[in-house]
């Protein structure tokens, strides 16, 4: 090679190297509690104290950076390989958290502000992620998590993918005419007063968006009970069993005294539903939306993303 080419080559390499190693400057973010959280670099050792946080972290490609999770973080499957710091029986094991030497602990509105104080008292950096109220809030959270972990590009790509899928669903649903009334069962330990999702919950929003009507939307409060008589009076078209994971089956529902006359029972319109999809404010909310659409409008099922 000539001298000139060598110099250009060397310059190119240097430029490439310089751009690849971005200068690391401390970044400050504001969390849901209006706290200013400063990270000198994207978080590399994260402890996630909510299953939704775990799903968000893995979804933006930061799974390798998660060093600790809580007991209920079971999605994706790789999360189960991460050591757990407790949470299913009372409090988190603070010693385990400290021993993991995390540079970020990710909380949600599930957690009390007192916990934030406790963790800060141990010298840990805490970020408090707010619960999304509408899907747009979810996208914001994804972007935030992307920034915190240094995966902005992947976060943006995920958001783009989610929004396009949601638009597709909106389009398809707009083309349907019926709006079945559904009853979303959260818990029926007492079949005379089952628990369901009320107005404002994601179940409620997603069911509407998927072209259905949530029977619980006329009730008061987020997680509410409905009396069996009222259920029979309203006679929903379909029943979704959000408590399927606890062993409730359509056959059991059909066998409940007084429920046998519901049209959902006689027409066999009882379906199991993975409640994790709609109770965890993570990217799988969109999967939940699509699943609702599939159940509510089987005619468009094969066109759904």
């Amino acid at each position, binding site marked *: 090679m000539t001298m000139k080419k060598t110099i250009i080559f060397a310059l190119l390499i240097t430029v490439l190297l310089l751009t690849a190693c971005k200068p690391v400057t401390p970044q400050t973010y504001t969390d849901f509690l209006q706290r200013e959280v400063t990270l000198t670099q994207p978080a590399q050792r994260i402890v996630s104290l909510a299953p939704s946080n775990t799903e968000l972290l893995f979804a933006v490609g930061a799974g390798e950076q998660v060093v600790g999770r809580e007991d209920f973080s079971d999605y994706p499957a790789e999360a189960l390989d991460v050591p757990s710091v407790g949470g299913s029986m009372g409090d988190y*094991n603070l010693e385990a958290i400290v021993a993991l030497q995390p540079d970020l602990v990710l909380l949600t509105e599930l957690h009390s502000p007192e916990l934030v104080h406790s963790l800060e008292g141990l010298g840990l950096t805490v970020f408090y992620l707010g619960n999304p109220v509408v899907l747009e809030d979810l996208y914001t959270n994804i972007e935030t998590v992307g920034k915190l972990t240094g995966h902005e590009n992947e976060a943006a790509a995920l958001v783009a993918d989610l929004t396009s899928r949601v638009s597709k669903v909106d389009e398809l649903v707009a083309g349907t005419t019926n709006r079945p009334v559904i009853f979303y069962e959260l818990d029926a330990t007492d079949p005379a007063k089952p628990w369901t999702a009320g107005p404002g919950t994601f179940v409620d929003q997603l069911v509407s968006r998927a072209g259905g009507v949530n029977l619980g939307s006329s009730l008061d409060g987020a*997680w509410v009970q409905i009396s069996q008589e009222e259920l029979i009076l309203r006679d929903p078209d379909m029943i979704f069993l959000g408590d399927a994971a606890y062993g409730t089956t359509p056959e059991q529902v059909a066998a409940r005294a007084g429920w046998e006359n519901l049209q959902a029972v006689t027409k066999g319109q009882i379906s199991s539903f993975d409640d994790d999809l709609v109770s965890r404010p993570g990217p799988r909310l969109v999967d939940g939306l699509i699943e609702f659409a599939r159940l509510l409008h089987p005619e468009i099922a094969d066109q759904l993303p």
Partner: protein
Amino acid sequence: MKENTARPYLVTLAILLAAMLLSVAVGSVVIPLKDIFAVFWQGITGSLGEQIPPEAAIIFKLRLPRTILLALTGAALASSGAAYQGLFRNPLADPYVIGVASGAGLGAVIAMSIRWPYEWASTFIIPVIAFAAGLVTVLLVVVLARVNRTSSSTSLVLAGVAISSFTTAVSSFVMLKSTGELRRSMVWLLGGSTLSGWQPVLGMLPYAVLGIGALLTMGYTLNVMQFGDEQAAQMGLRVGRRRLIVIVAASLTTAAAVSFSGVIGFVGLITPHIVRLLAGGNYRRILPLSTLAGAAFLLLADILARVVIAPQEVPVGIITALTGAPFFIWVLRRSRPEEV
């Protein structure tokens, strides 16, 4: 005729110190004893440096304060339990008999169901409210017991039962309505220090020390009261006043313990009972021995709570409750009819 042997005190103190050491050593991360002493030494000589190693953080910020908190709590509950067993002349009395725990529980449950603004939500919000609620409840009980003109022991217990039932019912209702905080309230009611660090220790310390100190002076009074209110008065005691002092001291102590460590059962019931069966009926000995033994008992229970399903922790109230069954069976088999 003189039974001032120091032996029971030394034995109990030794058990307590061993328990404290064990409590600092044991957890989901077992720290060898030599490392503990090394860290203490570094801490004392100030050579820990800027970046505290995780073992030191665990010891100083988590385990040591927790050890002291639980020792104080155990001491508070056992001394109160001993005082009430003496005051009410009932071996089944425990520190919660006149309602302080159910009242504090209601306060805590209500406090936990409110989303406090971040600036307010220090580690003290719940304990302070629980503490106030506990004391108000005892006040209600004492006033209610006065209704039949004499705040005799029986009317206090009855009033305590009445008010406890009420506050427990309201607690359950509040817990049911605020489903989000249900788990947290339940854990608190099961008993376990949900607070970490030195702040709860500093918060509880003045009340516990004051209350336990006052109770420790009431040993002789309780001895006299064993013969009933009438004979105690005939022997020259101002029975009503002394009873009130015992109640105030015990309530202060118990409210502090419950507010910072949750409702831990059985420590206050079992410890004085065992001490009494082993060391005789003299309350001037029962009270201090119960204080030390209660601290040791709770620490040992907490150590068990930390290791039995590590890395998860069982709320310590469950461990103490589990000791209840074997204890009562033991009492049943051992007791001579006229003793219990």
